[in-house]
C-alpha cells in the first residue's frame, strides 16, 4: 500500500498524459485531437505540480502564522505551471481558430480527408 500511496500522484498524471496521447493518435476528428492535446497539457501540468508536492504540506504563502518554509510545498514548479497553463491557452485558442478555417476550406474536420499536402 505504501508503494502505491507514494506514487499515486505520478500514476495519475501519466495516465492522464497517456489518455491525451491516445486521443491524439487514434481520433481522426480535428476537434477531438485538440481536446486530446489539451488533456495531455493538463496531465503534464499536474505532473509538474506533483514534482514539488510534499505529503501534508501547506501552501507556500508567508503569512503571520507561517514564517518558516519547513512545512510548505515547493513553490517553483507551481510558478512553472502558471506559465505552462498560459502557453496551453494560447495554443488552444490558435488551434480552434485554425480548426474553424480548416472547416471553411475543407467542409470537414476529418484529418483523413485533409491530406492535400503530402509526399
Amino acid at each position: 500500500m505504501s508503494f502505491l500511496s507514494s506514487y499515486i500522484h505520478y500514476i495519475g498524471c501519466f495516465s492522464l498524459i497517456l489518455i491525451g496521447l491516445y486521443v491524439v493518435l487514434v481520433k481522426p476528428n480535428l476537434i477531438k485531437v485538440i481536446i486530446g492535446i489539451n488533456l495531455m497539457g493538463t496531465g503534464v501540468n499536474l505532473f509538474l505540480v506533483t514534482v514539488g508536492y510534499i505529503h501534508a504540506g501547506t501552501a507556500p504563502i508567508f503569512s503571520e502564522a507561517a514564517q518558516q518554509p519547513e512545512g510548505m510545498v515547493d513553490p517553483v514548479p507551481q510558478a512553472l505551471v502558471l506559465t505552462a497553463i498560459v502557453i496551453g491557452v494560447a495554443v488552444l485558442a490558435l488551434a480552434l481558430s485554425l480548426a474553424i478555417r480548416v472547416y471553411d476550406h475543407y467542409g470537414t474536420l476529418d484529418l483523413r480527408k485533409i491530406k492535400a499536402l503530402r509526399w
Partner: protein
Amino acid sequence: MVSPILLIAVPLGLAFAIPVLGLASKRVPRYVPVIAMLFNLVVSVSLLPHALKAPIVVRTAGWAPPYSIHLVAGPLGVLLSSLIALIGLLVAVYGIDYIREGAKVKYQILYILMLVGATGVVLTGDIFNLFVFFEVLCISSYALVAYRGDSTGVEAGAKYLIQGAIGSGLVLIGIGLVYGTFGTLTMADIAANVSSVGSFRLFVSLAFLITGFGVEAAIFPLNGWLPDAHSSAPSSISAILSGIAIKAGLYAIARVVYTVYGASSILPFLAVLGIVTLLIGEMCAFGQEDIKRLLAFSSIGQMGLILFALALASATGISGAVFLIVSHGLAKALLFLASGYMIYRTGSRDISSLNGIGKRMPIMSLCFTVGAFSLIGLPPFVGFASKFTIVRAVLGTGSTFFITLLAIGLIGTVIEGAYFLRIVQGFYFKPAPEDSPEQTEGKVPFSALVPVGLLAVLILTIGLFPGIVGRVLGPAADDLLDRTAYVQHVMGD
C-alpha cells in the same frame, strides 16, 4: 558594454508598440521590424568581441545564479543571435513590399515575436526559460505559417500545431523530470551535479528533451510538419523558418546534450540519425515539382548534415557544424526570398514554370544560382568552406565508423547537386513555357533586390575570405564543448 538582455527586451517592447503605432498611421508598422532587427544586429555585433573573451552572464532580478533566471551570452550564443538578427533584418526589408494583403499589423508583431523567441533560445542559461522562448518561437510560427489563410496554409498550420504541441508537451515532461532529480532549473547547476545521479532516470529526461526539441529541429522521424509548413508559408516566413527556426531547435539539442548532460555516448546514435535525415531529405527533394517544397526538403537534408557534424564531438567538427549553420542560413534564406518573387512573377510554384526565367528576372536568377552553388558546396562560395571543414573534421577523427557515414553523406550531397543544378539549368537553358494566365509583368521592387543581392554578395565574400567567420568558430566550439568552463563561469562569480 550593452547588456544582452536588451536583445530581447527592446524588440519585445517595439513589438507591442506596433498596434499603437498602427493606429497612428497605416504605413509605419511595416518598418518597425526593420528597426528592431537593425538594433539587434548592432548590439550583438558590438557584444561579439566581449563575448569572445568570456561569456557575459546577466542575472535578472538580482538573484544569485542557481535561483535566478539568467542569460549566458557565450561566443556561440552571440554569433547565432547576430546571424538571426542579420537574416531577420534582410527578411524584414524584403517583407515591407512582399506582404500586401491580410492582417499586416499582426504579421509584423508575430514576425518580431518569432525572432525574439529564437534570440531568447540562443541566449538563455535557464532550462525552463529555454522552454518559454521555444514556445514563443513555435506559436508565432504556427500562426505565421497559416497567415495567408488559403487551404494549404491553414492545413499546414494545423498539422504543424498538433505536432508542435506534442513536442512541447514532451519537453515540459523532460523539464519536470530534471527538476524532480536536481531541484534546480539553471543549466550550469544541473551540469555541475549531473554525474551524481543514477543513469536511467537521467537518460529518460534526456530522451524526452531530445525528442521534444527534435520536433522543431527537423530530425528525421519528427519532421513530418516541415515540408508542408515551409512550402505553404509566405516566402519571407519560410526563409525565417528554414534559416533560423530549425537551427534554434538544433542549438537547443546541442546545448542539452553537450553542456547540460555531457552525454558523449549518445553521439554515435545522433551521427547515424543525422546521416539518415540527410539521405531522406535529399531523396525526397529529388522528385519534387513544387520549388518551395523542394527547398524545404533540402533544408531537412542540410539539417541532417549539421547534426552529423555536431555529433563528431571534436572542436573542428563543431566549428564545421556552426559554419554550416551560418552558410545554410544565408543560402537558404536567399533561395526562399528569390523564389518568392519568381513564384509571384510566373504565378505558379512548379519548377517547370520557372524555366527560362533567367532572361526575365536576371538578377533574381543569378542570386538564386549563387545560393544553389553555395548549398551544393562549389568552391568560390561559403558552402564549400563549411563542407570542407566538416569533411576535414570527420577525417581528423580517423574512425572508420564516421568515415563510412561521411561517404554515405557525400552521396547525399551529390543528389542535392543533381537537383539544384537541374533547376539552374532550367533557368538559363530551357525554353520558357508559353505565357500562363497568371503571368504578371511589373518590375521586382527595390526592397526585394537589396536583401537578395546583399545575401549573394555576403555568400561570395565569406566564401573567398572565410577568416571573417572563421575567427569566431573556434571559441564558439569550445563554448559548447567544455562544460567545466561553462559551469565554472556561470556558477563561479
